[in-house]
């Protein structure tokens, strides 16, 4: 059962460590950018879901439910294959032929597809988290702020939001780790600069699948631990009374 007819070549993997760490930087970059976009859109969606205007509500509900009920890989595919297809349809409807003009808008770079796809996913999940957080802020806080002369927007931005972020900081940290792990699906749309992509390229060149991916797994683990540890430190600095 355990007779291994295989020699491990860990040296090869360790020699490629600098390359893989460069990939890890891209992974982190995608995750951070998608989180920033996700937080901004997530707050907007959480507010829109409670809006008085029905179409706004429907838009938010559709976004949130699609993001939460389909695989992240599907969402990235939808962006990667879908956006160029929609552009083509729209351009066709207006009788514009970009291809004849020599402009290639029908191809989306895989980096952007992954970034937009994960940002879409993050926004949907975070919106639900934020909605729970907004509910945890007592309405008396808003009323007190308004009676002190705050405008509606100022009261939301300066009084409600900071308290909401305190309540949802831990789930947000989890979402950040999720975002990092999710970037690995970039490999399915041909992203070859992030950690998984770089590892796959090295693997294709050497066929040392186990060694390279084990090292990649270790790097992902360390990144995830640094992020959760860092978040704990930030929470301790920011949220103590």
């Amino acid at each position, binding site marked *: 059962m355990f007779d291994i007819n295989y020699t491990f070549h860990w040296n090869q993997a360790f020699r490629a460590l600098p390359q893989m760490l460069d990939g890890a930087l891209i992974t982190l970059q995608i995750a951070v950018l998608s989180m920033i976009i996700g937080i901004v859109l997530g707050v907007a969606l959480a507010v829109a879901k409670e809006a008085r205007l029905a179409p706004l509500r429907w838009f938010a509900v559709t976004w949130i439910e699609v993001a939460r009920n389909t695989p992240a890989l599907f969402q990235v595919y939808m962006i990667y*294959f879908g956006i160029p297809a929609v552009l083509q349809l729209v351009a066709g409807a207006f009788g514009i032929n970009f291809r004849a003009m020599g402009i290639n808008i029908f191809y989306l770079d895989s980096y952007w597809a992954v970034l937009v796809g994960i940002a879409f996913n993050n926004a949907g999940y975070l919106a639900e988290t934020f909605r729970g957080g907004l509910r945890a802020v007592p309405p008396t806080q808003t009323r007190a702020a308004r009676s002190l002369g705050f405008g509606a927007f100022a009261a939301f931005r300066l009084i409600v939001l900071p308290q909401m972020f305190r309540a949802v900081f831990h789930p947000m940290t989890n979402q950040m780790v999720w975002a990092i792990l999710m970037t690995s699906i970039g490999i399915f749309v041909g992203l070859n600069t992030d950690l998984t992509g770089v590892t796959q390229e090295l693997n294709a060149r050497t066929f040392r699948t186990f060694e390279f991916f084990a090292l990649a797994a270790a790097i992902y683990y360390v990144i995830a631990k640094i992020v959760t540890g860092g978040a704990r430190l930030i929470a301790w600095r920011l949220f103590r009374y």
Partner: protein
Amino acid sequence: MLGTSVTWGDITFMMTGAGLTLAITFWAMLGGTLAGVVFGLIRAQSPWYVNYSMGTVLDVLRSVPLLIQFILFNSFQSILGWGMNPFVVGCVVLAAYTSAFCTEIVRGGILAVPITTRRAARSLGMNYWQDMTYIVLPLGTRVMLPSWIGLTLGVMKDTALVYAIGVIELLRSSQIIITRKPHEALVILAIAGLIYFLVSFPVSRLGAHLEKKWREND
């Protein structure tokens, strides 16, 4: 169909893929839940050194991308010459991944039952297993079931990643059709997304409903 070149044959092909998605979800949830219940029971009542070391191992499963776990285990089993088929590899890895999450759910459920309630049960003469089945299980289920439903849906969505080791599940099958009919990418993907949504959405509503209903009873 629908004024496109997507044929019924393509739809049937995708439905076969959807069946495989559900099959992998089923086996992964079965294995993962059984292991998770055992691990959760151990974690909820063992000394700190067992708890801590177990937590670390399970934490690794949650902090490494599932995609990499699939690839790693697949290459590992071929190094050992086990020759497992990709479907089994997918189920095993996903079950291990599920068990890591299920352990936390079970542990949380057990710890959510007030210790005073359990002591009351014991002082009424119940033994450990009676306490577990008549007191902890019914009270803990209220905490556990909504999260467990959420976990099931998460696992179903994660099956999309078995693509990496060559199992032709729903998303892979739509990808294959797209390769053949690139101009229909949007329609094919929309169908795949709709299938995921139609399975996932009602179940997630049920989970939310149960969570709300049970909270009102408290």
